[in-house]
């Protein structure tokens, strides 16, 4: 539904060049919720603004619903008629809602319809329908200043849907909201995705958002997409930064001659009592250093960091047992590699963990 290829955006100001996007290839399938996650400055905002060409990419192409938008853009900085028509079929929600304070809620939702040139009667009928859909039918005559953050974002979503788009872009739509409101807005996006078959591309810095609504996700760092795929694929990928960030595990080995193992449960294996089986079968004591269980994309998934006594070489058999049970097993570090002074988090995970912490703030 949305495809970008080789998307590059370079900002030039006073002779300095900043590369915000560095060859981004993104593919969002029809009807899925796709999350792009990254820290501030990773290029997420530039990416989403390039999708509807609010920002002109320096090079590369953007295709939305089979239409090459970069070809419509023309050379000048102003958007031509065709590009504007294409934009009206792409909804967009913003972090700070961007509602017009001088208009009532209903008039705000009518704004895109005015641009589309609908008659007054049709506009108000449609606007009221949309407000009903987002659960704000009773606030039609209120002004945005009288609404709470969550209600404002609902108006923003209703407005974005006014042009009956197939694609919805969400620019940090929940970042200015409290956790509870965030959940209700995400639920609304999920419902709209299911009911209307809406394809949603969202950018966020909160791992929880990805966990709650996304079918697929991509991790951005310094203008590049470092990892991408469906959430279950990512979880099944050994050493995946996103999977590690979705389920951050911490905990250091408690002494020498121990083996730290990260186990990922998904699908059938999540319901099996594997740890106690392992303990009984091999008669070993197992310490749990950290664990996280959650529902991701509607499936029960978990990760656990356990510690087995003895060096890695002595634990080959129990680890093999875990693998046999259909679990994904990552040995966090070999006993003889690196020191044991609490630094057992492998280097590549650092950024993902930092991300998870930022999300927790």
């Amino acid at each position, binding site marked *: 539904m949305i495809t970008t290829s080789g998307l590059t955006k370079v900002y030039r100001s006073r002779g300095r060049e900043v590369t915000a996007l560095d060859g981004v290839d993104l593919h969002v399938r029809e009807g899925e919720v796709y999350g792009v996650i990254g820290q501030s400055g990773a290029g997420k905002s530039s990416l989403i603004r390039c999708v509807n060409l609010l920002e002109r990419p320096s090079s590369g192409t953007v295709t939305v619903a089979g239409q090459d938008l970069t070809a419509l853009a023309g050379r000048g*900085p*102003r958007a031509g008629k065709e590009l504007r028509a294409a934009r009206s079929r*792409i909804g967009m929600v913003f972090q700070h809602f*961007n509602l017009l304070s001088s208009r009532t809620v209903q008039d705000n939702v009518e704004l895109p319809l005015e*641009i589309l040139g609908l008659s007054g009667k049709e506009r108000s009928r449609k606007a009221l329908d949309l407000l009903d859909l987002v659960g704000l039918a009773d606030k039609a005559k209120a002004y945005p200043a009288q609404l709470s953050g969550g209600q404002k974002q609902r108006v923003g979503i209703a*407005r974005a849907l006014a042009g009956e788009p197939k694609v919805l872009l969400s620019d940090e739509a929940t970042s200015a909201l409290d956790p509870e409101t965030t959940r209700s807005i995400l639920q609304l996006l999920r419902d709209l995705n299911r009911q209307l078959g809406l394809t949603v591309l969202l950018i966020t810095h909160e791992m929880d958002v990805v966990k709650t609504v996304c079918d697929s996700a991509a991790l951005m760092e310094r203008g590049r997409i470092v990892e991408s795929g469906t959430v279950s694929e990512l979880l099944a990928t050994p050493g995946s930064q996103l999977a590690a960030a979705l389920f951050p595990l911490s905990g250091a080995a408690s002494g020498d001659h121990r083996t730290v193992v990260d186990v990922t449960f998904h699908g059938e294996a999540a319901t099996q009592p594997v740890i106690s089986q392992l303990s009984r079968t091999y008669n070993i*004591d197992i*310490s*749990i250093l950290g664990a996280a269980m959650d529902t991701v994309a509607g499936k029960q998934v978990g990760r656990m960091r356990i510690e087995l006594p003895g060096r890695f070489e002595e634990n080959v058999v129990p680890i093999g047992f875990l693998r046999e049970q259909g679990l994904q097993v990552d040995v966090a570090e070999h006993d003889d590699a690196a020191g044991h002074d609490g630094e057992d988090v492998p280097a590549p995970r650092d950024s993902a963990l930092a991300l998870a912490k930022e999300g*927790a703030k």
Partner: protein
Amino acid sequence: MTWSEMQPLLEQACWDTLYMVGWSALIAVAAGLPLGLLLVLTDRGGLLQNVVVNKVIGQVVNIGRSMPFIILMVALMGFTRSVVGTTIGRDAAIVPLAISAIPFFARLVETAVREVDHGLVEAVQSMGGNTWTVVRKVLVPESLPSLISSATTTVVALIGYSAITGTVGAGGLGDLAVRYGYQRFETELMWITVGILAVVISIIQFAGDYAARRLHRRGGQAGAAPRLKLLRSGTPKAAADGATAEGATTGGATAPAAAESGPEPVKVP
């Protein structure tokens, strides 16, 4: 000078002032609004970015603003004659008044329009709106309270300028005060004129403020909010309450951070 002598003079002067200021303000708003919008739109990063046009308009506005009104009026005499056919009288005064007020109002418009959140512009663009839509649906309506305040300021400034138009025989309250009150030592008449001017200006300022505040409150209830805040901080007890509440929130924020670090290993038998 008796009141019966003064009355017709004052009446005529009032009408002359209103006539000149009314027309010139109308022209200034009509021309200054697009000019001010252009100043914003053609600026670097604007929707119609055009550095050359921006620089030219900016310079013209600066020159217009820096000209003392009396010099502008004399300098424009040729132009005035070609527009209204004469260089003296009320109608002739409207031309220099309007021309001096256009750049003045344009700068005020520029400041007001710049205050509009760029996110709103982006939102309308994302709906497929063009530049004209952005101007009509966002820039003007969202800055309307400020624009009304700017227009009020312009009208008040024009009333001041209109006193000088007496030099070209345009009449008006200011002219009355100078010719009768100052030059003929009719001190009483002078003070009456000044009083009338003060009342007129107060009424205009009040009306302008009222309209701007009403629009603003409709849009944001922002008119009421700051006042409430002032009241609250005025009482020391409320301020202290606020401080403790703030302390509690920061305390609350640190607690989960502490809980997050260092999970203890759990033994499984």
